[in-house]
């Protein structure tokens, strides 16, 4: 009876919900990609993060800032793991402003401790140069974007082993690969472009990537390691943005495994101790229903 009541409330709620959920989202869900860093044992692929940084540097960085990322981060553990020498040289390619001893602003080469310099001096300049809206900062973008998978998937996504946390990463990859000609009869207003994965489809960013645009380092045999396609570029930059948003992800997952294992073992020990202690009181009573209580 109890279950019947609960079930009928849920059925009614979901029925009504489903009936009203027709609000015509013709935006398809981003396709779910395989990421090396997903799941409990997920790890970033250093080579992929390095390629992702290359795509950022050669393509995205002309419009998108990455204000929270320091050059030194690129050499830190759990990231793209460039060498300290590479990072020093890389930073020195950029100029940052500094005040000298007599109070004038002067340029100096960036150091590993400096933030990656933004393409525009401030947000207003960025907006003015991009049709009135500043391109979003990349630092935490993959955590700032998501899409709804609806009931019951949003519950399943929270579970261990079958869980899913890469909504934002998949979304970024989908946007980069989602540029299409608008369907017949659909006009795109000036300054907007048609993208099937963008909510409302009209995105202000022109198609940023094309096949062969970025030349990756070749493998030992002179062959490309990965295809130089929009799809691959999209995956690499999305993976790179997963790292910029969560630079300590690998440390987090590794520590989490040890902590949870420790807590479960300790719980097991405590359960044993508790049973032994309660044996002195004639054992413990379980269950909600008094008639189910065991007797001694």
């Amino acid at each position, binding site marked *: 009876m109890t279950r019947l009541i609960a079930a009928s409330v849920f059925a*009614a709620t979901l029925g009504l919900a*489903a009936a009203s959920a027709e609000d015509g989202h013709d935006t398809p869900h981003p396709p779910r990609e395989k990421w090396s860093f997903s799941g409990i044992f997920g790890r970033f692929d250093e080579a992929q993060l390095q390629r992702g940084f290359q795509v950022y540097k050669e393509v995205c960085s002309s419009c998108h800032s990455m204000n929270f990322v320091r050059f030194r981060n690129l050499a830190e553990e759990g990231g793209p793991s460039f060498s300290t020498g590479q990072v020093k040289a890389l930073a020195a390619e950029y100029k940052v402003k500094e005040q000298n001893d007599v109070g004038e602003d002067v340029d100096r080469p960036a150091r590993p401790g400096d933030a990656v310099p933004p393409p525009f001096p401030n947000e207003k300049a960025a907006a003015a140069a991009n049709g009135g809206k500043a391109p979003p900062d990349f630092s935490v973008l993959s955590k700032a974007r998501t899409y709804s998978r609806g009931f019951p998937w949003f519950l399943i996504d929270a579970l261990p082993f079958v869980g899913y946390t890469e909504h934002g990463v998949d979304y970024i990859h989908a946007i980069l690969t989602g540029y299409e000609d608008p369907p017949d009869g659909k006009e795109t207003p000036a300054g907007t472009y048609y993208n099937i994965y963008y909510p409302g489809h009209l995105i202000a960013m022109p198609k940023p990537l094309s096949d062969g645009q970025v030349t990756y380092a070749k493998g030992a045999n002179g062959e490309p390691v990965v295809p130089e396609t929009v799809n691959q570029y999209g995956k690499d930059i999305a993976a790179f943005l997963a790292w910029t948003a969560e630079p300590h992800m690998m440390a987090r997952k590794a520590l989490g495994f040890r902590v949870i294992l420790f807590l479960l073992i300790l719980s097991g020990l405590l359960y044993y101790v508790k049973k032994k202690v309660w044996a002195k009181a004639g054992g413990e009573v379980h269950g909600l229903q008094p008639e189910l*209580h065991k007797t001694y």
Partner: protein
Amino acid sequence: MSAHASTYVPKSRLAKWFESRLPIVGLVHSSFVSYPVPRNLNYFWTFGAILMAMLISQIVTGIWLAMHYEPTAAGAFNSVEHIMRDVNYGWLLRYMHANGASMFFVAVYIHMFRALYYGSYKAPREILYILGVIIYLLMMATAFLGYTLPWGQMSFWGATVITSILGAIPVVGDTIQSLLWGGYSVGSPTLNRFFSLHYLLPFMILGVVVLHVWALHVTGQNNPTGIPIKSDKDTVPFTPYATIKDVFASMVFFAFFAYWIFYQPNYLGHADNYIPANPAVTPAHIVPEWYFLPFYAILRAVPDKLGGVVLMFSAVLILALAPWLDTSRIRSANYRPIYRQFLWLFVSVCVALGYLGAMPPEGGYVIAARLCTAYYFAHFLLVMPLVGLFETPKPMPGSILDSVTGPGKQFSGSGMPVGAAAAPSSKG
């Protein structure tokens, strides 16, 4: 057993000297060592200890985060990212604190369910229960204030929406609103005072928790049968029995907590809060944290601004009236066959309201939210008074011990220590 004198006997001369001047060891001893607990408590009764642990966890992680946080509109988002990236284990402290808030509410909702199911709100525990409702209110305020601190989009717009709710209060609404804002809109002064209050409220919670435990100490614990303690045989001493059970349950809960911290740290938050606050753009779906969703659904179920606000606050405050709305003399729903069905219906309605609170306020969602809101209030105003009058309770065991051993059977376990069993009864 009300306010029984401490049984602590200091052994050393120093302990005697101290105890005769400040009997705090005796107080702790009588509250957490010799304190008699019903022997039939199930795991629902471990959530008091779990909540205590979560409150301490929140206070400690919060104090440590405040060492690195900057409460200004220009600096808040940056300082949070600084904590996440540069502070040693900063990511751990922040994820513990953010997910800890959610876990606190998970535990408090289980605790509240326990109180409603087993009738823990009934005489003589009304004050104990109302103090609990006050703690819950303070928790809601603290959680709301805390969520504004990262100064992301949800922080900003959450602060805007909730302070606008207070603007609905007739006559003084606008004044209250501008006093909260410290300006003409939500801004840096608002954030700074919200930080100050967010730091203050947990210590107020701690204070009310002390009263809550004190009241518990006076009335003693309820138990799954709802029958009062009748003899020493009904109880076991808090230590080691309840202590070890509480520690075990807390450890299992921490493992659950750790899963969220380490593997789903952002699941219970909102992606939009990783976008810095922007007063020119409202997020597409603005919803509160999951633990506020049922009340948010009630707010939106009413088409009138003031009406919605009144109903939403009533939904929390009506909890405090439960001791007087429930007319049944039986505490535990285990022996109330009709009321138990309604209670499960009430729980289902709360979960459904939570789901509806997350959905856009349109079409069928609004109708469902109105039906659920109607039942929410009917449960308190109609079901509680009426069912108690007409229901025939199931037969009850004669005592707590009977419920454990079965009626009529002699208890043969070596439960109470011999000395204690022989001691004169001091039950109240």
